[in-house]
């Protein structure tokens, strides 16, 4: 394993020291491993808390700031944060208007956020509403399973709900917007290589030089199927087709998001964006906004995911609203 680290056990805490040093506009609670806006809590504003396992950077800590999250609770690599961390985040952003938890749909994340919310309820803490993201069409949903994973749409939920909260909307409003974004968004990803979890010390899975994993999540888990490596045009089809099969994206326009898994260079992501854009044009789906880059990653994994979000006027306005975070910034 080749990484820019000291002891694998300290990757997260030492990285947070770097975040604190590089970003005076953020405040890091090193004991609880929570990244806050320096000006949190903002009285009267709904507080937005997200969090999850680390290793997906810039998600979530890179999305803390004006117009997006108020705090991110950082679990160990690929391990959801514990309730104490989420509670510290929740209390730290509680400006009296309630707190929204944005939770990716993984058993661990859901349970730890639930336990934190139960504690907040039991101790008369902030009013908490949770929105769970589950946009990954690779996972067959059914009554008997845990349902789809939360992946790329999480970034869009954090941005759009963040803008709604910044605009002073109520907790139930902000939660409704967040749920709508999740409901209208779908994702699908593929991996060219595995990633290496620092504590594990070797790649999570072995992938022969001519094979890829399709239908992966963001935790280095193997995908739904292993298929031969193919040209980008074909790979784009493997990602876009299941998304278009799952939801009708005809309408005013979509946000098209091509996301890198961490180890794939931008030149390839833009090439993929071109292929995705072509497929959407062919399918009669018009693109209103785009996002290309490494936003929700899986450590050093090579690969990408595609997320489409069906925008309405309100979502579009909130997407365009100013945001000022380490990883997403405009208008400020």
């Amino acid at each position, binding site marked *: 394993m080749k990484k820019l680290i000291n002891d694998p056990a300290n990757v997260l805490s030492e990285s947070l020291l770097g975040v604190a040093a590089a970003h005076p506009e953020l405040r890091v609670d090193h004991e609880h491993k929570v990244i806050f806006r320096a000006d949190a809590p903002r009285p009267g504003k709904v507080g937005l808390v997200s969090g999850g396992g680390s290793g997906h950077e810039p998600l979530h800590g890179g999305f803390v700031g004006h117009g997006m999250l108020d705090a991110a609770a950082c679990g*160990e690599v690929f391990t*959801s944060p*514990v309730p104490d961390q989420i509670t510290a985040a929740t209390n730290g952003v509680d400006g009296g208007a309630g707190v929204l938890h944005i939770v990716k749909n993984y058993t661990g994340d859901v*349970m730890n956020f639930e336990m934190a919310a139960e504690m907040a309820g039991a101790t008369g803490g902030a009013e908490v509403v949770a929105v769970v993201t589950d946009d990954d069409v690779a996972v067959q949903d059914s009554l008997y399973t845990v349902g789809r994973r939360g992946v790329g749409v999480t970034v869009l939920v954090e941005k759009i709900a963040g803008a709604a909260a910044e605009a002073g909307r109520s907790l139930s409003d902000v939660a409704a917007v967040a749920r709508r974004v999740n409901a209208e968004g779908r994702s699908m990803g593929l991996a060219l290589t595995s990633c290496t*979890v620092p504590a594990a010390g070797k790649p999570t899975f072995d992938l022969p030089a001519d094979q890829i994993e399709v239908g992966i999540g963001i*935790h280095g888990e193997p995908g739904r199927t292993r298929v031969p490596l193919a040209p980008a045009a074909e790979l784009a089809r493997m990602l876009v087709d299941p998304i278009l099969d799952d939801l009708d994206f005809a309408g005013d326009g979509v946000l098209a998001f091509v996301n890198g898994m961490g180890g794939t260079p931008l030149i390839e992501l833009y090439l993929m964006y071109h292929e995705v854009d072509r497929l959407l044009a062919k399918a009669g789906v018009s693109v209103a906004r785009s996002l290309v880059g490494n936003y929700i990653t899986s450590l050093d994994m090579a690969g990408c995911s595609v997320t489409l979000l069906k925008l309405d006027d309100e979502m579009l306005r909130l997407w365009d609203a100013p945001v000022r975070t380490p990883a997403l910034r405009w208008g400020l």
Partner: protein
Amino acid sequence: MVDGEAIRSWLSLFATEVARNRDLLTQLDSAIGDADHGANLDRGTSAAVSAFGTADHSSPGSVLKTMGMTLVGTVGGASGPLYGTLFLRMAGCAGDAERLDAPAFAAALRAGLDGVVARGRAQAGDKTMYDALSPACDALDDALAAGRDIGDALSLATAAADAGRDATIPMLARKGRASYLGERSVGHQDPGATSAALLVAAAAQALSGQVSA
């Protein structure tokens, strides 16, 4: 009778076994999960052993509570809340009693299992820790009901947990990360069932002497 000290030796032994099997657990989790079960659980059980050093262990309930709180507070992921809830529910069931007799211990373990189900909604055959824990509880109850002593009963429970763990191999996962793999989850042993079997085996080893004493 099981006192706080006995519970402490059980859970300390579990911690030792988790440390010894850390790489195995992570390797199993690499195949059908995210390669962290060994690191997660080891972080929690080591923290619990440290906490035992200073915490109250005058009663089984207090030790179990320390264990549960520590796991909830340090493990994260799916296994943190699940194992945490298991021990917290055991603590709740044990109450302030200074000692637990065999049926009381079995009842506490059953309460813990119910907590796991309440938290994670797993059913038999979902390919989770439930598939090792549930047969173990059943075997323990049956053996005690049949008048076996606690040592024998825990040995039978261990065998049942091991069998339950092995039975996860052919299962198609319906809960936890392995469920994302669909058909590809078949043929792999569940990491959580594996750690759960270690927990039961540690009980057999640590408690059978104590209880018959």
